[in-house]
């Protein structure tokens, strides 16, 4: 799948899983996206191969950050005029609770969209939306 085609198709039909499927790392994570009244939600499956702390066990911090970054990218593609993957400038992640081996969800908000830079906030949670496992702020270069 050509990425620009997947982006066009997703924007036209509202199915952002098509973009996730066209990006190897998002496919590697098995990320899917769904649109409902609450906006775009990304879902990470409960796969044991994502474990970073085998004692708890809990997901690796990199996997949770990867989900949040993927969510930020898909939210940007959904909400602004952009036809390719925006460049990551930086990410700051607060890990709030251990992310168990469970289905994990993430939602992003474009806090600021400038001409060159976008600031996106992301939250990830598992069983309880009110008890996030992680929060992140991500900056992207749009040009």
């Amino acid at each position, binding site marked *: 799948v050509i990425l620009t085609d997947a982006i066009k198709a997703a924007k036209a039909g509202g199915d952002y899983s098509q973009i996730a499927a066209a*990006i190897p790392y998002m496919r590697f994570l098995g990320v899917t996206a769904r649109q409902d009244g609450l906006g775009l939600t990304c879902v990470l499956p409960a796969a044991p191969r994502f474990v970073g702390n085998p004692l708890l066990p809990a997901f690796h911090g990199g996997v949770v950050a990867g989900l949040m970054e993927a969510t930020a990218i898909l939210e940007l593609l959904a909400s602004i005029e952009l036809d390719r993957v925006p460049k990551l400038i930086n990410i700051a992640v607060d890990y709030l609770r251990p992310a168990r081996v469970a289905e994990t969800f993430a939602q992003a908000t474009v806090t600021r969209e400038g001409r060159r830079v976008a600031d996106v906030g992301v939250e990830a949670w598992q069983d309880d939306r009110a008890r996030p496992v992680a929060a992140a702020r991500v900056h992207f270069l749009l040009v």
Partner: protein
Amino acid sequence: VSAPVAIDAKMIETIIRHIPHCVDLGMRLVELGPDWATLALPYDARLVGDPDSGVLHGGAVTSVIDTVCGLAVMLARGQPAGMATLDLRIDYLRPATPGEELLARAECHKLTRNIAFVRGRAYHASQPGDTVAASAAVFMLEPADRPAKARP
């Protein structure tokens, strides 16, 4: 409190081998010191974030940096005790070069009773001075005489 033990390369390699995500990404120990370590992340087409350029997704870079930061803390403590990442910030200075293995080095520059401060950077062996990503992380430490256990 149990006495610090020397953590050697073999122990670190064993720890890495028991972390499913690290095994999945093919991470391997390159070098270590009293409060630092270097890991390698092989280039892998599964980890590409932009299919147009072949550049790795930030998440894969975050995984190797988070891991090596944790290892640096273990080395500084002299204890393979548990810890939790409180916060991790990564600046992506330039894209990783497609096809090239990425190295990540982290150093624990301050260790207190409860908290460890770690900085790290990712780069390629071909251009070691050209930083791909720079990180600052803070870890909360589990007491050394108590294994990491589940919180309610």
